[in-house]
């Protein structure tokens, strides 16, 4: 029997299985979106595949009733954990009027949903980082013990906005968790051509915060580090930088062909460490999930993805005149 690591950090079997379900839902939705894209039904996909453990592990470690998340475009696991539904994701993929992110105005993956404190992002990467800092500053001003959680890739940790935001948070000791999902490629350029330092977490030192590099394929480990960072933030001890090492199992997007820059052997090797498979095996080995539960979860998720797809497919598009709304406050 494998060592039960989730119980030792205070996670029940039920919560661990809930995390697995959320990871699997993200994976199956993503896979469905690729099928829809390849059959010409949706214009674009940008994937979470391979990074679900880091996303879900982190999101579950936050207070999902009051913390803010500022995800980047791969973070389907984060937003599903924070209350977005399968139908919400599909409505965005189809760019339908009912898409809760933006009513079909933005690319899929540009998540935003005020009721769940998911703050919208923009296509130039990492520009949401200083927003997390400002939201944390607002929380501190109001003496709320909220934490803001912002994610980005290793490539985008080179952007000025990351450094300006991290420094601001460090100087003002703000409750921000900076989480890098290091999937080893910024589209085609590998990490060794992105970073002059060895690890993204080395950058934490420059901003007066602790930095950790951890296994992003293990949701239990990610949960543990993010939980500690959140507790530190709530105690007023400031921000943390966590680098989760993952791998992007798909091409960068539906418009990218990764065969130009990654060997098939490398991708196959990564697939053998697919966090969906390894976490499933772990849950079964520890007895948290049995064969019957696994089958029931599979069936339930397939049903959810089917229903979400059908719902989004038949939902109406926005009216042309909708493009003219919400640029400025509407006349009273």
């Amino acid at each position, binding site marked *: 029997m494998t060592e039960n690591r989730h119980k030792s950090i205070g996670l029940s079997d039920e919560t661990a299985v809930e995390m697995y379900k959320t990871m699997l839902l993200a994976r199956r939705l993503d896979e469905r979106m690729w099928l829809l894209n390849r059959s010409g039904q949706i214009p674009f996909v940008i994937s979470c595949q391979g990074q679900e453990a880091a996303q879900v592990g982190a999101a579950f470690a936050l207070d999902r009733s009051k913390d*803010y998340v500022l995800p980047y475009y791969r973070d389907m696991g984060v937003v599903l954990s924070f209350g977005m539904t399968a139908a919400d994701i599909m409505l965005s993929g189809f760019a339908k009027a009912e898409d809760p*992110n*933006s*009513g079909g*105005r*933005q690319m899929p993956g*540009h998540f*935003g*949903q*005020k009721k769940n404190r998911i*703050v*919208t992002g*923009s*296509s*130039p990467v990492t*520009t949401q*980082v*200083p*927003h*997390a*800092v*400002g*939201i*944390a*500053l*607002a*929380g501190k*001003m*109001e003496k709320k013990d909220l934490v*803001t959680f912002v994610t980005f890739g290793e490539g985008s940790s080179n952007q*000025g*906005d990351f450094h*300006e*935001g991290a*420094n*601001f948070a460090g*100087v003002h000791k703000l409750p921000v968790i900076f989480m890098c999902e290091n999937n080893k490629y910024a589209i085609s350029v590998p990490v060794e051509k992105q970073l002059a330092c060895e690890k993204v977490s080395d950058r934490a030192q420059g901003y007066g915060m602790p930095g950790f590099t951890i296994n992003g394929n293990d949701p239990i480990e990610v949960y543990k580090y993010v939980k500690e960072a959140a507790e530190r933030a709530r105690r007023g001890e400031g921000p943390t930088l966590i680098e989760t090492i993952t791998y992007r199992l798909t091409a960068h997007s539906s418009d990218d062909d990764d065969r130009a820059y990654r060997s098939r052997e490398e991708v196959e090797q990564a697939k053998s460490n697919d966090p969906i498979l390894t976490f499933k095996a772990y849950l079964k080995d520890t007895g948290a999930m049995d064969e019957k539960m696994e089958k029931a979860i599979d069936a339930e998720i397939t049903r959810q993805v089917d229903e979400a797809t059908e719902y989004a497919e038949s939902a109406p598009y926005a009216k042309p005149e909708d493009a003219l*709304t*919400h*640029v*400025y*406050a*509407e006349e009273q």
Partner: protein
Amino acid sequence: MAMEMRDLPKKETKDQMLTIVQAVNDGMRTLLETDDRIMLLGEDIGKNGGVFRATEGLQEVFGADRVVDTPLSEAGIIGASVGLAVNGFKPIAEIQFLGFIYPAYEQVMTHVSRLRMRTMGRYTVPMVIRAPYGAGVRAPEIHSDSVEALFTHMPGIKVVCPSTPYDAKGLLIAAAEDPDPVLMLEPMRSYRAKREEVPSGRYTVEIGKGKRVKEGTDITLIAWGAMMPVVEKAAEQAEKSGISCDVIDLRTLYPLDRDLIAESVQKTGRAVIVHEAHFTGGLGNDIVSMINDTSFLYLRAPIERVTGFDVPVPFFALEEHFLPTPARVVQAIEKAVHF
């Protein structure tokens, strides 16, 4: 200057004689006093009171939590302000010189101006960005930029530019009350040029409304900010040769006061637009288009533009040659009138 400001009565009297920069200071003081959600962010704005003294004394009164000396990091200032606004605060961010906004331009273009649209109004960014702009104070190159057109081009943000102390305070308070983000350009050349009576307490100048500063019949002169004194001087000179000028201070650069422009040009049949920004892509082009759309058949002469040239603002020894002068404006007036 600093002593003068401290010596001014703050609340006791109804009106105070203030310069533009003092009126901006008084506007922020009024906002901080009356709205807990107002915060000021910027470089050197706290202990130092701002490089132009616009925030003089405010950190002493309202504390370092509400008047925040930020790291030297423009994208950080604007980005953190977006986060504050998203979470219910009303930040007023100072960019030390408008030309220093370029590192934060991305934040303004992709977030400040678009968050509302992107989220269908669920998240909004009610914030004010203040920036001294323009040449004429012997500041080098980037410090002298007047690039309002970069911002009037992007939907989702409003742009105001006062030329008087009264308007400076009133527009600042209106900007802070506005549900949308507002960029307020402050004419640094006019910061201390003159004083006028400024009411104490809260009042606003409506965003989107220009002001006729002189009534006339022969030609319309349109300008804003630091170009207003230039245009007013030109109007005085033109009057001496019997040309009566209708002088408009736009005050808001987006949205433009279409009605006021049309009404004036339809009366005079001629117009000169004056801005210190570069000629190509300048806001003058939009005003010409607006006059064509509203008043083409009233025109008695082609519309004239007097602007900076299509070169970066030159260093101080040459800036007088770059900036529009009363003489250049008078030349344009005469060209239009004698067409």
